[in-house]
């Protein structure tokens, strides 16, 4: 299931939902806003409709590639503060290797390809985040 919205994400509820598939192995990743470099707020903007479609396509690719039973992506948008959950990714498979790899694939891809734009505020300064090379490298390892 793909969800993009401004509501706070509850890690427990998300994890319980993907675990309820009853698959043998469930892998999840929870990404939170870090307070690195004095970030006060993180604002995420998305392209309503297109972003959801892009995440659904990404999830479908993971399901096919790793034979997943289910994949779940829940993404928050709007203004967040350090400690808030930005994204939840959950994968369910019969065996653990598939679930773990697919989960890592999804979060790496989400961090690069997904149609989101980030704006950080530090004190009085607000700036749009530029794409990062390290994220591209993390995503590239899945292309073989």
């Amino acid at each position, binding site marked *: 299931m793909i969800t993009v919205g401004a509501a706070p994400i509850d890690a427990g509820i998300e994890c319980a939902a993907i675990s309820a598939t009853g698959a043998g192995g469930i892998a999840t990743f929870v990404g939170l806003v870090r307070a690195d470099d004095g970030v006060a707020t993180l604002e995420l903007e998305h392209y309503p409709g*297109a972003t959801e479609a892009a995440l659904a396509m990404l999830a479908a690719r993971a399901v096919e590639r790793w034979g997943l039973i289910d994949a779940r992506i829940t993404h928050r948008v709007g203004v967040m503060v350090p400690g808030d959950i930005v994204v939840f990714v959950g994968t369910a498979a019969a065996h653990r290797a598939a679930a773990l790899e697919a989960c890592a694939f999804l979060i790496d891809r*989400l*961090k690069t390809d997904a149609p989101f734009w980030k704006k950080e505020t530090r004190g009085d300064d607000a700036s*749009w985040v530029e794409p990062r090379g390290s994220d591209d490298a993390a995503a590239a390892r899945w292309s073989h």
Partner: protein
Amino acid sequence: MGLELVYFAWVRERIGHGSETVHPPADVVTVAGLIDWLAAGSAVHAAAFIDRTRLRAAVDQTFVGLDASVIGAREVAIFPPVTGG
């Protein structure tokens, strides 16, 4: 029927609004041509679009290059490179 334009992130901020409806002439056939036409008609758009290498686009919610066709399109989005989730 007009063409719906949507903007995101700093493109949206520089233009000052998230969407607008325009009626480009028939010789505007690509996203790049649309950007040129918008920039020619408005100093605000010209400033927002000044560095074309930092612009990305989607036509009817499909991500495309700036050389993609806008013929028959209902919605064109113009935005900076995505920074991921």
